[in-house]
Protein backbone atom coordinates (compact mmCIF):
# COMPACT_ATOMS: atom_id res chain seq x y z
CA UNK A 1 0.00 0.00 0.00
CA UNK A 2 1.35 3.37 -0.96
CA UNK A 3 2.37 5.61 1.91
CA UNK A 4 -0.06 8.46 2.43
CA UNK A 5 1.47 11.77 1.56
CA UNK A 6 1.79 14.27 4.38
CA UNK A 7 1.56 17.84 3.13
CA UNK A 8 4.04 19.10 5.75
CA UNK A 9 6.62 16.47 4.82
CA UNK A 10 9.44 17.47 2.58
CA UNK A 11 9.73 16.03 -0.92
CA UNK A 12 13.17 16.51 -2.44
CA UNK A 13 14.81 14.15 -4.83
CA UNK A 14 17.93 12.29 -3.78
CA UNK A 15 21.28 13.24 -5.20
CA UNK A 16 23.71 10.74 -6.66
CA UNK A 17 26.95 12.28 -5.49
CA UNK A 18 27.67 15.32 -3.34
CA UNK A 19 26.77 16.90 -0.03
CA UNK A 20 23.53 17.48 1.81
CA UNK A 21 23.72 20.07 4.55
CA UNK A 22 20.75 19.46 6.79
CA UNK A 23 19.44 21.33 9.84
CA UNK A 24 20.78 24.64 8.57
CA UNK A 25 19.32 27.43 10.71
CA UNK A 26 16.08 28.62 9.09
CA UNK A 27 16.73 31.42 6.62
CA UNK A 28 20.50 30.83 6.37
CA UNK A 29 20.60 28.61 3.26
CA UNK A 30 21.42 31.41 0.83
CA UNK A 31 24.21 32.60 3.08
CA UNK A 32 25.64 29.09 3.27
CA UNK A 33 25.69 29.02 -0.54
CA UNK A 34 27.41 32.39 -0.69
CA UNK A 35 29.93 31.25 1.84
CA UNK A 36 30.75 28.23 -0.30
CA UNK A 37 31.17 30.51 -3.29
CA UNK A 38 28.23 28.99 -5.13
CA UNK A 39 26.52 31.54 -7.32
CA UNK A 40 24.90 29.22 -9.85
CA UNK A 41 26.81 30.90 -12.63
CA UNK A 42 29.59 28.38 -12.34
CA UNK A 43 27.15 25.60 -13.19
CA UNK A 44 26.83 23.92 -9.80
CA UNK A 45 23.66 21.90 -9.37
CA UNK A 46 22.20 22.87 -6.00
CA UNK A 47 18.79 22.51 -4.41
CA UNK A 48 17.60 24.64 -1.51
CA UNK A 49 14.73 24.12 0.85
CA UNK A 50 13.96 26.99 3.13
CA UNK A 51 11.91 27.21 6.31
CA UNK A 52 10.71 23.62 6.10
CA UNK A 53 9.26 21.88 9.14
CA UNK A 54 11.82 20.24 11.42
CA UNK A 55 11.07 17.97 14.37
CA UNK A 56 14.27 19.11 16.06
CA UNK A 57 14.20 22.88 15.64
CA UNK A 58 10.73 23.80 14.37
CA UNK A 59 11.99 25.23 11.07
CA UNK A 60 15.14 24.55 9.11
CA UNK A 61 16.83 24.97 5.74
CA UNK A 62 18.41 22.20 3.67
CA UNK A 63 21.14 22.67 1.06
CA UNK A 64 21.95 19.95 -1.46
CA UNK A 65 24.99 20.37 -3.63
CA UNK A 66 25.84 17.89 -6.33
CA UNK A 67 29.37 16.74 -7.02
CA UNK A 68 30.90 18.78 -4.26
CA UNK A 69 32.45 17.71 -0.95
CA UNK A 70 33.27 20.26 1.71
CA UNK A 71 36.69 21.17 3.05
CA UNK A 72 37.36 21.27 6.78
CA UNK A 73 37.55 25.08 6.77
CA UNK A 74 34.23 25.33 4.94
CA UNK A 75 32.56 23.10 7.53
CA UNK A 76 33.94 25.34 10.29
CA UNK A 77 32.49 28.36 8.54
CA UNK A 78 29.07 26.74 8.36
CA UNK A 79 29.33 25.98 12.07
CA UNK A 80 29.83 29.69 12.70
CA UNK A 81 26.44 30.65 11.32
CA UNK A 82 24.53 27.41 11.77
CA UNK A 83 25.85 25.45 14.74
CA UNK A 84 23.24 22.67 14.51
CA UNK A 85 23.85 21.77 10.88
CA UNK A 86 24.66 18.20 9.85
CA UNK A 87 26.74 17.22 6.87
CA UNK A 88 25.82 14.17 4.78
CA UNK A 89 28.28 13.01 2.16
CA UNK A 90 26.52 11.07 -0.58
CA UNK A 91 28.09 8.60 -2.96
CA UNK A 92 26.03 6.57 -5.40
CA UNK A 93 22.75 7.66 -3.74
CA UNK A 94 23.94 6.41 -0.35
CA UNK A 95 25.00 8.42 2.70
CA UNK A 96 28.60 7.36 3.21
CA UNK A 97 29.42 9.84 5.97
CA UNK A 98 27.19 11.83 8.31
CA UNK A 99 28.35 14.17 11.03
CA UNK A 100 27.40 17.32 12.93
CA UNK A 101 29.34 20.48 12.25
CA UNK A 102 31.47 21.43 15.21
CA UNK A 103 33.21 24.68 15.95
CA UNK A 104 36.78 24.20 17.07
CA UNK A 105 37.90 26.10 20.18
CA UNK A 106 40.06 28.30 17.99
CA UNK A 107 39.05 29.58 14.54
CA UNK A 108 41.82 30.63 12.19
CA UNK A 109 41.75 32.67 8.98
CA UNK A 110 38.14 33.80 8.98
CA UNK A 111 36.24 36.14 9.47
CA UNK A 112 37.82 39.62 9.45
CA UNK A 113 38.01 41.33 12.82
CA UNK A 114 35.32 44.03 13.04
CA UNK A 115 37.65 46.33 14.97
CA UNK A 116 39.25 48.63 12.37
CA UNK A 117 42.05 49.35 14.87
CA UNK A 118 42.98 45.66 15.14
CA UNK A 119 46.47 44.72 13.97
CA UNK A 120 45.02 41.86 11.87
CA UNK A 121 43.43 44.50 9.63
CA UNK A 122 46.84 46.04 8.94
CA UNK A 123 49.18 44.77 6.27
CA UNK A 124 50.69 41.95 8.30
CA UNK A 125 51.30 38.30 7.44
CA UNK A 126 49.43 37.12 10.51
CA UNK A 127 45.97 35.63 10.01
CA UNK A 128 42.83 36.26 12.03
CA UNK A 129 42.47 34.02 15.05
CA UNK A 130 39.47 33.80 17.37
CA UNK A 131 38.63 32.01 20.58
CA UNK A 132 35.13 30.56 20.60
CA UNK A 133 33.48 31.80 23.79
CA UNK A 134 29.98 30.53 23.03
CA UNK A 135 28.57 28.47 20.15
CA UNK A 136 24.86 29.25 20.38
CA UNK A 137 24.43 32.19 20.51
CA UNK A 138 27.71 32.65 18.73
CA UNK A 139 30.37 34.69 20.50
CA UNK A 140 33.97 34.71 19.33
CA UNK A 141 36.82 36.86 20.66
CA UNK A 142 39.75 38.14 18.61
CA UNK A 143 43.01 36.71 19.92
CA UNK A 144 44.80 39.97 19.16
CA UNK A 145 42.51 42.86 20.13
CA UNK A 146 39.98 40.99 22.34
CA UNK A 147 37.01 42.34 20.38
CA UNK A 148 33.91 40.16 20.67
CA UNK A 149 31.93 39.28 17.56
CA UNK A 150 28.49 37.67 17.24
CA UNK A 151 26.68 35.79 14.48
CA UNK A 152 25.45 38.99 12.91
CA UNK A 153 28.99 40.33 12.58
CA UNK A 154 29.96 37.16 10.71
CA UNK A 155 26.86 37.06 8.50
CA UNK A 156 27.30 40.71 7.50
CA UNK A 157 30.75 39.91 6.16
CA UNK A 158 29.55 36.89 4.25
CA UNK A 159 26.82 38.68 2.39
CA UNK A 160 29.22 41.44 1.42
CA UNK A 161 31.77 38.86 0.40
CA UNK A 162 30.57 37.72 -3.01
CA UNK A 163 28.58 40.84 -3.79
CA UNK A 164 25.38 38.93 -4.58
CA UNK A 165 23.26 41.27 -2.51
CA UNK A 166 24.48 44.36 -4.36
Amino acid at each position, binding site marked *: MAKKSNSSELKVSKIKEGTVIDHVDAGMALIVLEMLGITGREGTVATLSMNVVSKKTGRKDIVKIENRFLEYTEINQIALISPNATINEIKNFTVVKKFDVQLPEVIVGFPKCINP*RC*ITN*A*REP*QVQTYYVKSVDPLKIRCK*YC*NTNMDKNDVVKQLTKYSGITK
Partner: protein
Amino acid sequence: MSRKSFLGKSIVSIKDLTREDLDIIFEEADKMEQIIKSNKKPLDGKILAALFMEPSTRTRLSFEAAMHHLGGSVITVSDPKSSSAVKGESLSDTIRTVENYCDIIAIRHPLEGSARLAAEFSRVPILNGGSGAEEHPTQALLDLYTLLKELKTVEGKSIAMVGDLKYGRTIHSLAYILSKYNAVKLYFVSPPSLRIKAEIKNDLKEAGIEFHEVESLSEVIPLVDAIYMTRIQKERFPQEAEYEKVKDAYVLTKELLTFAKGPIPVLHPLPRVNEISYDVDDTKHAVYFKQMYNGVLVRMALLNLILGGEVK
Protein backbone atom coordinates in the same frame (compact mmCIF):
# COMPACT_ATOMS: atom_id res chain seq x y z
CA MET B 1 55.38 29.42 38.59
CA SER B 2 58.71 30.48 39.90
CA ARG B 3 61.14 33.31 39.32
CA LYS B 4 62.82 31.21 36.61
CA SER B 5 59.59 30.84 34.65
CA PHE B 6 59.84 34.51 33.65
CA LEU B 7 63.07 33.91 31.70
CA GLY B 8 62.52 34.95 28.10
CA LYS B 9 58.79 35.53 28.64
CA SER B 10 56.88 38.30 26.86
CA ILE B 11 54.44 40.49 28.78
CA VAL B 12 51.62 41.22 26.35
CA SER B 13 48.46 41.32 28.42
CA ILE B 14 47.48 41.47 32.05
CA LYS B 15 45.21 38.52 31.32
CA ASP B 16 48.24 36.30 30.69
CA LEU B 17 49.49 36.80 34.25
CA THR B 18 48.37 34.70 37.18
CA ARG B 19 48.04 35.87 40.75
CA GLU B 20 51.25 33.99 41.50
CA ASP B 21 53.05 35.82 38.68
CA LEU B 22 51.98 39.12 40.22
CA ASP B 23 53.41 38.11 43.61
CA ILE B 24 56.76 37.25 41.98
CA ILE B 25 56.89 40.54 40.07
CA PHE B 26 56.09 42.62 43.16
CA GLU B 27 58.57 40.70 45.30
CA GLU B 28 61.22 41.45 42.69
CA ALA B 29 60.14 45.11 42.55
CA ASP B 30 60.69 45.38 46.31
CA LYS B 31 64.33 44.40 45.75
CA MET B 32 64.92 46.96 43.02
CA GLU B 33 65.31 49.94 45.33
CA GLN B 34 68.50 48.31 46.62
CA ILE B 35 69.81 47.99 43.07
CA ILE B 36 69.22 51.70 42.47
CA LYS B 37 71.14 52.59 45.61
CA SER B 38 73.99 50.16 44.94
CA ASN B 39 76.41 49.90 42.07
CA LYS B 40 75.17 46.46 41.06
CA LYS B 41 74.68 45.89 37.37
CA PRO B 42 72.70 42.67 37.00
CA LEU B 43 71.92 43.38 33.33
CA ASP B 44 75.38 44.55 32.30
CA GLY B 45 75.83 43.93 28.57
CA LYS B 46 72.10 43.56 27.85
CA ILE B 47 70.32 45.88 25.44
CA LEU B 48 66.72 47.12 25.57
CA ALA B 49 65.18 48.42 22.35
CA ALA B 50 62.44 50.95 23.15
CA LEU B 51 60.28 50.91 20.05
CA PHE B 52 57.72 53.65 20.53
CA MET B 53 55.62 54.14 17.43
CA GLU B 54 53.19 56.40 19.25
CA PRO B 55 54.06 59.39 21.41
CA SER B 56 54.95 58.59 25.00
CA THR B 57 56.96 60.35 27.67
CA ARG B 58 56.48 58.60 30.97
CA THR B 59 56.38 55.00 29.81
CA ARG B 60 59.40 55.27 27.52
CA LEU B 61 61.54 57.26 29.98
CA SER B 62 60.55 54.89 32.76
CA PHE B 63 61.57 51.82 30.73
CA GLU B 64 64.85 53.49 29.80
CA ALA B 65 65.57 54.57 33.38
CA ALA B 66 64.79 51.04 34.57
CA MET B 67 67.27 49.51 32.13
CA HIS B 68 69.98 52.06 33.03
CA HIS B 69 69.52 51.34 36.74
CA LEU B 70 70.09 47.65 36.03
CA GLY B 71 73.34 48.40 34.20
CA GLY B 72 72.02 47.60 30.74
CA SER B 73 71.91 49.90 27.74
CA VAL B 74 69.09 51.27 25.65
CA ILE B 75 68.45 51.93 21.97
CA THR B 76 65.38 53.94 21.16
CA VAL B 77 62.90 54.93 18.50
CA SER B 78 61.13 57.79 20.21
CA ASP B 79 59.74 59.64 17.24
CA PRO B 80 57.33 57.55 15.17
CA LYS B 81 58.12 59.74 12.16
CA SER B 82 61.73 58.56 12.21
CA SER B 83 60.82 54.87 12.14
CA SER B 84 60.59 52.76 9.03
CA ALA B 85 56.85 52.31 9.65
CA VAL B 86 56.48 55.66 7.88
CA LYS B 87 58.04 54.06 4.80
CA GLY B 88 55.33 51.42 4.94
CA GLU B 89 57.18 48.64 6.74
CA SER B 90 54.93 46.15 8.50
CA LEU B 91 55.26 45.65 12.24
CA SER B 92 56.29 42.03 11.77
CA ASP B 93 59.21 43.09 9.55
CA THR B 94 60.23 45.84 11.99
CA ILE B 95 60.28 43.31 14.82
CA ARG B 96 62.30 40.75 12.84
CA THR B 97 64.84 43.49 12.19
CA VAL B 98 65.05 45.08 15.63
CA GLU B 99 65.35 41.71 17.41
CA ASN B 100 68.84 41.43 15.92
CA TYR B 101 69.98 44.53 17.79
CA CYS B 102 68.79 43.79 21.30
CA ASP B 103 67.92 41.33 24.07
CA ILE B 104 64.42 42.63 24.77
CA ILE B 105 61.94 45.01 23.11
CA ALA B 106 59.54 47.41 24.82
CA ILE B 107 56.93 48.43 22.28
CA ARG B 108 54.14 50.97 21.99
CA HIS B 109 52.04 50.85 18.87
CA PRO B 110 48.76 52.56 17.90
CA LEU B 111 46.98 49.37 16.80
CA GLU B 112 45.25 46.97 19.14
CA GLY B 113 46.75 43.51 19.36
CA SER B 114 50.10 44.82 18.06
CA ALA B 115 52.09 43.58 21.04
CA ARG B 116 50.70 40.06 20.71
CA LEU B 117 51.59 39.99 17.04
CA ALA B 118 55.07 41.33 17.85
CA ALA B 119 55.56 38.59 20.46
CA GLU B 120 54.63 35.93 17.93
CA PHE B 121 57.26 37.12 15.48
CA SER B 122 60.02 38.04 17.87
CA ARG B 123 62.87 35.81 19.01
CA VAL B 124 63.46 38.17 21.95
CA PRO B 125 60.88 38.91 24.66
CA ILE B 126 58.36 41.71 24.12
CA LEU B 127 57.12 44.11 26.78
CA ASN B 128 53.86 45.78 25.86
CA GLY B 129 54.14 49.51 26.58
CA GLY B 130 50.64 50.24 25.29
CA SER B 131 48.80 48.78 22.32
CA GLY B 132 46.05 51.08 21.06
CA ALA B 133 43.17 51.62 23.47
CA GLU B 134 43.36 48.00 24.51
CA GLU B 135 46.14 47.14 26.92
CA HIS B 136 48.83 48.76 29.00
CA PRO B 137 49.95 45.96 31.29
CA THR B 138 52.99 47.62 32.89
CA GLN B 139 50.79 50.58 33.89
CA ALA B 140 48.31 48.22 35.53
CA LEU B 141 51.17 46.48 37.34
CA LEU B 142 52.58 49.73 38.71
CA ASP B 143 49.08 50.90 39.69
CA LEU B 144 48.45 47.70 41.60
CA TYR B 145 51.93 47.75 43.11
CA THR B 146 51.23 51.27 44.39
CA LEU B 147 47.86 50.23 45.82
CA LEU B 148 49.46 47.26 47.56
CA LYS B 149 52.21 49.42 49.03
CA GLU B 150 49.72 51.98 50.29
CA LEU B 151 46.96 49.65 51.47
CA LYS B 152 49.08 46.56 52.36
CA THR B 153 46.42 44.44 50.64
CA VAL B 154 43.62 45.09 48.15
CA GLU B 155 41.51 42.16 49.33
CA GLY B 156 38.31 43.37 50.93
CA LYS B 157 39.01 46.95 49.82
CA SER B 158 36.76 49.37 47.97
CA ILE B 159 38.32 51.32 45.15
CA ALA B 160 36.80 54.16 43.14
CA MET B 161 37.77 54.61 39.50
CA VAL B 162 36.84 58.05 38.29
CA GLY B 163 36.59 59.85 34.96
CA ASP B 164 36.79 58.46 31.46
CA LEU B 165 36.06 54.80 32.05
CA LYS B 166 35.06 54.10 28.47
CA TYR B 167 38.24 54.94 26.61
CA GLY B 168 40.84 54.85 29.39
CA ARG B 169 42.98 51.76 28.86
CA THR B 170 44.56 52.12 32.30
CA ILE B 171 41.10 51.64 33.81
CA HIS B 172 40.46 48.47 31.83
CA SER B 173 43.79 46.88 32.72
CA LEU B 174 43.52 47.86 36.38
CA ALA B 175 39.98 46.49 36.68
CA TYR B 176 41.17 43.17 35.19
CA ILE B 177 44.17 42.92 37.45
CA LEU B 178 42.09 43.67 40.54
CA SER B 179 39.69 40.90 39.58
CA LYS B 180 42.47 38.43 40.45
CA TYR B 181 42.08 39.38 44.13
CA ASN B 182 39.27 38.36 46.49
CA ALA B 183 36.47 40.61 47.67
CA VAL B 184 37.59 43.77 45.87
CA LYS B 185 34.69 46.19 45.48
CA LEU B 186 34.85 48.70 42.63
CA TYR B 187 32.97 51.98 42.22
CA PHE B 188 32.96 53.22 38.64
CA VAL B 189 32.34 56.97 38.75
CA SER B 190 31.68 58.57 35.37
CA PRO B 191 29.16 60.54 33.32
CA PRO B 192 26.69 58.22 31.53
CA SER B 193 28.44 58.79 28.20
CA LEU B 194 31.80 57.54 29.52
CA ARG B 195 30.69 54.43 31.39
CA ILE B 196 32.86 51.34 31.39
CA LYS B 197 32.32 49.07 28.38
CA ALA B 198 29.80 46.22 28.57
CA GLU B 199 32.47 43.65 27.60
CA ILE B 200 34.57 44.56 30.62
CA LYS B 201 31.55 44.54 32.91
CA ASN B 202 30.71 41.03 31.68
CA ASP B 203 34.24 39.85 32.37
CA LEU B 204 34.13 41.35 35.87
CA LYS B 205 30.79 39.66 36.55
CA GLU B 206 32.26 36.34 35.42
CA ALA B 207 35.19 36.91 37.78
CA GLY B 208 32.70 37.54 40.60
CA ILE B 209 33.79 41.13 41.24
CA GLU B 210 31.29 43.43 42.94
CA PHE B 211 31.01 46.78 41.22
CA HIS B 212 28.72 49.79 41.21
CA GLU B 213 28.26 52.45 38.58
CA VAL B 214 27.65 55.93 39.97
CA GLU B 215 27.77 59.50 38.75
CA SER B 216 28.57 61.42 41.91
CA LEU B 217 32.14 61.49 43.16
CA SER B 218 31.27 63.15 46.49
CA GLU B 219 28.87 60.31 47.37
CA VAL B 220 31.58 57.72 46.85
CA ILE B 221 34.47 59.38 48.68
CA PRO B 222 33.35 58.34 52.21
CA LEU B 223 32.91 54.73 51.07
CA VAL B 224 36.26 53.90 49.52
CA ASP B 225 39.79 52.94 50.56
CA ALA B 226 41.49 54.41 47.48
CA ILE B 227 40.64 56.65 44.53
CA TYR B 228 42.00 56.20 41.00
CA MET B 229 41.45 59.41 39.04
CA THR B 230 41.69 59.75 35.27
CA ARG B 231 41.44 62.68 32.92
CA ILE B 232 38.10 63.32 31.24
CA GLN B 233 39.03 63.66 27.63
CA LYS B 234 37.26 66.63 26.11
CA GLU B 235 37.84 65.34 22.58
CA ARG B 236 35.68 62.30 23.28
CA PHE B 237 32.44 64.28 23.70
CA PRO B 238 30.26 64.73 20.62
CA GLN B 239 29.07 68.10 21.97
CA GLU B 240 31.06 70.55 24.01
CA ALA B 241 28.00 71.34 26.15
CA GLU B 242 28.05 67.73 27.35
CA TYR B 243 31.66 68.06 28.40
CA GLU B 244 30.99 71.37 30.17
CA LYS B 245 28.27 69.66 32.20
CA VAL B 246 30.55 67.00 33.68
CA LYS B 247 34.07 68.38 33.68
CA ASP B 248 33.83 70.01 37.12
CA ALA B 249 31.94 67.10 38.65
CA TYR B 250 35.19 65.24 38.84
CA VAL B 251 37.60 67.71 40.33
CA LEU B 252 39.08 66.17 43.42
CA THR B 253 39.97 68.82 46.01
CA LYS B 254 41.50 68.83 49.47
CA GLU B 255 38.11 69.87 50.82
CA LEU B 256 36.29 66.95 49.21
CA LEU B 257 38.86 64.57 50.65
CA THR B 258 37.98 65.68 54.19
CA PHE B 259 34.94 63.40 53.77
CA ALA B 260 37.18 60.38 53.21
CA LYS B 261 37.60 57.58 55.77
CA GLY B 262 41.13 58.72 56.46
CA PRO B 263 44.33 59.42 54.53
CA ILE B 264 43.17 57.25 51.61
CA PRO B 265 45.59 57.16 48.65
CA VAL B 266 44.72 59.02 45.45
CA LEU B 267 46.30 57.62 42.27
CA HIS B 268 46.40 59.00 38.75
CA PRO B 269 48.19 57.59 35.67
CA LEU B 270 49.04 61.21 34.67
CA PRO B 271 49.04 63.55 32.87
CA ARG B 272 46.40 65.42 34.85
CA VAL B 273 44.63 68.52 33.67
CA ASN B 274 42.40 69.84 36.44
CA GLU B 275 40.82 66.69 37.86
CA ILE B 276 43.04 66.77 40.94
CA SER B 277 43.51 70.28 42.30
CA TYR B 278 47.03 71.29 43.28
CA ASP B 279 46.04 71.64 46.92
CA VAL B 280 45.89 67.83 47.12
CA ASP B 281 49.58 67.52 46.16
CA ASP B 282 50.84 68.36 49.65
CA THR B 283 48.46 66.03 51.47
CA LYS B 284 49.02 62.43 52.49
CA HIS B 285 46.47 61.43 49.86
CA ALA B 286 48.75 62.28 46.92
CA VAL B 287 50.60 59.19 45.77
CA TYR B 288 50.55 59.89 42.02
CA PHE B 289 54.16 60.98 41.83
CA LYS B 290 55.23 58.07 44.02
CA GLN B 291 53.30 55.95 41.53
CA MET B 292 55.71 57.12 38.80
CA TYR B 293 58.68 56.03 40.91
CA ASN B 294 56.99 52.67 41.49
CA GLY B 295 56.68 52.44 37.72
CA VAL B 296 60.47 52.37 37.44
CA LEU B 297 60.71 49.66 40.12
CA VAL B 298 58.07 47.48 38.45
CA ARG B 299 59.68 47.83 35.01
CA MET B 300 63.09 47.05 36.53
CA ALA B 301 61.56 43.94 38.09
CA LEU B 302 60.18 42.78 34.75
CA LEU B 303 63.43 43.41 32.87
CA ASN B 304 65.46 41.68 35.55
CA LEU B 305 63.18 38.64 35.77
CA ILE B 306 62.87 38.20 32.01
CA LEU B 307 66.57 38.71 31.26
CA GLY B 308 67.72 36.63 34.20
CA GLY B 309 69.50 39.26 36.26
CA GLU B 310 70.92 38.08 39.57
CA VAL B 311 69.66 39.69 42.76
CA LYS B 312 71.48 38.97 45.99
